[in-house]
């Protein structure tokens, strides 16, 4: 299925902005809502310092188009590969070595929430609503949400949210640690942009990438291996900074 045009990409001041572009609901036709090759091409820009994902118009996203899923559900192989492609894209988002912020206004349901959870930081407007409604249709979150949500909210809160399919407002979502910041009504993007500036403005790309990579290593490698890598990254930055200061003094 063609999903070009469903998503916009632009770069402003070294920050990439991906916009889910099918308002008002910004429904996702298929889980791989950006062809993964295109996503990698967008984010391979070596000058890029950060990425923000937002929805066009009022909402973030109401989620996936379940009709598509039910349409091919007889074809196990096709369904599995469709879900796998979506999961693969979300893993690519999570693995980026630049900070990724989800800017969430209003509705953020299902696959929309899956996207938000694959981002590093979630900023939601005070009128944002989050849910995994899949169980109402006798389904379940299928793009890693069952794994990502408990890392933030713990097992029991996640079980409750996924099993009930209930909508969670921004304040409760913050309490549950699903979102990191609450922005004023409909102002998620301005908040996310300002936070991104504070994190990346005046920071060389190499510093940003080294820090995110070290954090990734801390989650994925043994402590000793992560530390050897961290030391290597630190020393590389320190050597450059030492040289820079010498040149400046000369």
């Amino acid at each position, binding site marked *: 299925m063609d999903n070009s045009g469903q998503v916009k990409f632009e770069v402003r001041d070294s920050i990439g902005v991906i916009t889910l572009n099918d308002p008002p609901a910004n429904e996702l036709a298929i889980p791989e809502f950006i062809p993964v090759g295109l996503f990698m091409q967008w984010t391979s820009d070596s000058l890029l310092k950060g990425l923000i994902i937002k929805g066009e118009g009022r909402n973030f996203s109401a989620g996936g188009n379940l009709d598509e899923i039910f349409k091919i559900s007889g074809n196990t192989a096709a369904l599995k590969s469709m879900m796998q492609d979506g999961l693969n894209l979300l893993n690519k988002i999570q693995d980026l070595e630049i*900070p990724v912020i989800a800017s969430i206004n209003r509705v953020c349901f299902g696959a929309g929430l899956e996207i938000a959870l694959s981002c*590093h*930081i*979630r900023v939601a407007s005070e009128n944002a609503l989050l849910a995994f409604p899949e169980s109402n249709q006798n389904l379940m979150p299928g793009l890693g949400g069952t794994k990502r949500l408990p890392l*933030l909210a713990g097992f029991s809160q996640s079980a409750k949210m996924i099993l009930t399919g209930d909508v969670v407002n921004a304040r409760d979502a913050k309490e549950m*640690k699903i979102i*990191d910041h609450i922005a004023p009504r409909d102002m998620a993007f301005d908040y996310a942009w300002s*936070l991104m500036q*504070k*994190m*990346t403005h*005046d*920071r*060389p790309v190499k*510093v*940003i990438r*080294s*820090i*995110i990579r*070290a*954090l990734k290593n*801390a*989650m994925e490698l043994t*402590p000793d291996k*992560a*530390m*050897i890598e*961290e*030391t*290597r*990254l*630190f*020393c590389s*930055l*320190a*050597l*450059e*900074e*030492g040289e*820079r*200061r010498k040149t400046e003094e000369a």
Partner: protein
Amino acid sequence: MILQWSIENGIGRLTLNQPPSNTMTMAFFHELKVLMDEIPAMQHLKAIIITGHGRHYSSGADIRELLANVDNLIMLENYRAFVMLERLQIPVISAIRGVCLGSAFELALFSHFRICAEDAVLGLPESTFNLMPGIGGIQRVSALAGKAKAIEIILRGNTFSAGDALDMGLVDAVVPRNYVIPFAIAFANDLPGNIYTTDRSIYIHKFLSPLHAST
């Protein structure tokens, strides 16, 4: 000595002693390594409290010295000294007053407990001078505060208050400045000797509850 060490009633006091900012120089790390080798043999030691001399805990590493001596092995040795501290069987408590930044905050993060003054200022500002935390702070912050907060505070490099640190799970208790040391001593006396048989959160809660009841 830049690192002052004394034992009183079975509790060791490790003081960063280069006021006013108690900078952590290469000499400090050397003295720390020597002390870490000696501590396991100190039979009657039941806890360690780490503080800074004077107003502040410490402003962290001496950047000029550090940049003039960039060396993977030195950095890893410094990290190993922190790990030795963390692996001690007895509880290690950082009593944090004033400034606690960079490597000093990393040292505090390798302690088992962090008792913090209300006026304390904490942070990992390395990225603001084109560096990154280099002695394991990245690992500890992400484990305690989660990846999102870790990315934010390390990339921003901003300082934050004791209250914010408590909210993020980076410190265990916040008390008025004058109570930090007495609190740390009383807490050390209340802890069972072996840190590995202690549930950290239960102890902090148990110890704090009478305080809450009296206020």
